[in-house]
């Protein structure tokens, strides 16, 4: 353990090698205590390195990071709130090193998050996603049905969260089919003929599907049910991500989503896999296991923090989700506190056998009425 803490990782180049090792995997084999030590030793170097190349983050780390060398656990690393990527362009590389900008799918009128990606980060993101998914769905390539429109992928330089996920999962495809058309008003329309012929063609073998949770539900599952469609693809695997908020509003539970989606496809419910991730940390995804828990891959982690004290919650308790990742080198995305709440279900003892922290997403953090009559207006932003 002392080895992890002090000797091996003192230089960014050594650290880069160790991150690559972790990305190669295995993803869920390290006990949490060991993982803590490994990741903290990497983060000490990585955060300081990024701080040296990104002035604003340097100031942030100076204010809130304390003595970086004294970081002992993941919760000592000061997390940057995710909304900061909407307000600042936080780059740790010169413009000529930027190979891609990732943009959050913004709602109208809102400033999207902008994440700059250099070659190293892009490479790691792709490798990492593949390495994680391999452990859930196996390594082989298969026919890929994207429950979205081709337009959602975007071009190479400016990629949205949706596009990045569609591409990332695409690494497991031998042939890609898009199930939807984008209408002029921005809505999506399923191409049922295309969908039926895709399933007819690949009835017997394994197929891979991916879509955003809300789109899968509102445009695919419920419409297929209405049309009385059942596809009978027993070897289908559906990955989905993002957008539970709208489903919670429709009172659709994760269980109901899984059951009805599996019924439409004709596969086992355990082949409907939700993963948690965000555009600010592409490549770092927390995939559901067979027991319905989300696991952190080897090169990343999750910290569930109590409101107010910001201490890590105990097992069984809920708090604010922070995601930690060693992938980014081009921006300060190593420790990000999200606008989501989750529950720390356990450590090292999930029935599925995977080690490390495992958690469940519970809800977005919503404003409460408690703010009262003093809660007025965003004058500062409206005026400027």
């Amino acid at each position, binding site marked *: 353990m002392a080895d992890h803490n002090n000797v091996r990782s003192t230089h960014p180049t050594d650290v880069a090698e160790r991150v690559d090792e972790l990305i190669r995997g295995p993803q869920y084999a390290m006990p949490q205590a060991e993982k803590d030590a490994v990741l903290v030793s990497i983060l000490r170097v990585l955060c300081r390195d990024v701080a040296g190349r990104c*002035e604003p983050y340097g100031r942030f780390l100076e204010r809130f990071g304390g003595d970086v060398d004294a970081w002992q656990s993941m919760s000592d690393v000061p997390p940057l709130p995710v909304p900061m990527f909407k307000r600042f362009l936080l780059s740790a590389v010169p413009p000529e090193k930027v190979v891609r900008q990732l943009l959050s799918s913004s709602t109208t009128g809102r400033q999207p998050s902008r994440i700059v990606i250099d070659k190293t980060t892009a490479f790691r993101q792709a490798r990492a996603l593949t390495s994680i998914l391999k452990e859930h769905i196996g390594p082989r390539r298969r026919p890929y049905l994207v429950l979205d429109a081709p337009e959602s992928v975007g071009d190479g330089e400016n990629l949205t969260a949706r596009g990045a996920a569609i591409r990332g999962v695409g690494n497991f495809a031998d042939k890609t089919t898009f199930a939807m058309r984008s209408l002029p008003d921005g809505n999506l329309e399923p191409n049922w003929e295309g969908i039926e012929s895709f399933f007819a063609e690949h009835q017997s073998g394994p197929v891979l599907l991916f879509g955003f949770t809300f789109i899968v539900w509102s445009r695919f599952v419920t419409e297929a049910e209405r049309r009385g469609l059942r596809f009978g693809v027993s070897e289908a695997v559906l990955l989905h991500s993002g957008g539970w908020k709208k489903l919670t509003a429709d009172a659709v539970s994760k269980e109901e989503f899984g059951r009805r989606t599996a019924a439409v496809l004709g596969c086992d419910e355990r082949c409907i896999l939700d993963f948690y991730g965000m555009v600010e940390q592409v490549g770092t995804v927390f995939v559901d296991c067979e027991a319905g828990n989300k696991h952190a891959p080897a090169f990343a982690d999750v910290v569930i923090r109590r409101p107010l004290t910001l201490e890590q919650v105990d097992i069984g308790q809920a708090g604010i989700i922070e995601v930690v990742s060693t992938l980014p080198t081009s921006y300060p995305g190593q420790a990000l506190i999200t606008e989501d709440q989750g529950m720390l279900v356990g450590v090292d003892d999930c029935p599925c056998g995977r080690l490390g922290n495992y958690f469940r997403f519970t809800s977005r953090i919503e404003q409460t009425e408690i703010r009262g*009559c003093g809660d007025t207006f965003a004058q500062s932003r409206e005026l400027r």
Partner: protein
Amino acid sequence: MSILQITPEGSRPSGDTLAPLIESLNRRRSHMAEIPVDRLLALLDEFSGRLLRDERTRSLEGIMFLAAWLRRNNLQRLLELNLNGNPAYLDGFVSAGRDYLAAKPQGLVAMWMAGNVPTLPMYSLVPALLAKNVCLVKLAYPETGGMDRLLAVLADCRVEGLSGSELLEAIAVVWFDYHRTELNEQMSLAADAKIVWGGRSAIEAITALPRREHCTEIVFGPKYSIGVIGRERLEQDADPDGVVAAFVQDIAIFDQRACSAPQTIFVERNERYSLNEIGEMFARELAKLPAKPALDAYTTMQILSARAEWALDESRDVIASDDGANWTVCMDRDVVLKEAVQSRTIFLTEVESWWEIIPLLGPKVQTVGIALGRLETSQKFAEAATAACVARCVRPGIMNNYESPWDGKLLVGQLVRWVTLKP
């Protein structure tokens, strides 16, 4: 769970319609109208004393101030200010030469409370009762927040000719889900006067409800409050820490959720203290406060975001508690009203002169805590600020002290109908 009624014994389910409660309040109107105002004042004075002695209420947040506010002298002065100098108008016709004038109750006053201040319902309930109205109060939360205990102590009060439990017959306190439009409508349509406290969305929803044509609608909030520390004060004062400590009191109370709590404090540039030194003074005072008992995830995120935003920006700076999201001092030179984060988060903004603040003021700014120096300067500031629709300019330390007028309104005066007799 549909309607909960909050009583001295706690809360109990109360069916799915407000009709019986409204009916029994209406039956009580004539009885209420006949209670002499002096008896009401005596009973409330007794209530004031008991609140501080009774262990059910003496540790409620804001109870000291409420007790002082309920004292007979204070309420007497309040009535004089509200009622043309003479509370006797409440008891019947008072002659003015050949003519007569009286202040009659509006009737049923419906109140929608905000959840931010536990004792808040009392500040509209008492004026409504003094004006001899019957009151239907809707709390923001099913948790009573101490209201049941306040009612229980009131029920135990007794003075010559009036008991607390008798007065309670004129009050119904309820909770139901905010989204129950039909109940909100029922309440609104029963009202002769509506009092609404709350944030923007609550106020928009409640004022949009149908109401009777004669119904008076009185809205409190959403408001924003600020502070100003002047050059004169800083350059002459031997003890600027006292000013800072007083502002920190205003910040601490009700966890900065009241509309009268300062969110941004402007500091005039001066020869003695840099903005950073003032920031350090605030930090020292904030660090002395007892730890906050709890905080919701949303406000925690707002605090973390403000801290990060002020640290990432080169032209800004921030000092924060190292024990979680306890307190935060954000400093900059951006002359705007910062979005309220609340819960011990104060934005200090340096200005050359307080004149720069005046264009930011408007009807949404309620209270300005002023530490400006000479009386003449305070008067000059108050003239400019109130011309821009600010309601109160008060010294730091008393920003959250509820007083009449509030938000520019003399509440008791609006809860009566002025009637005339010219025989």
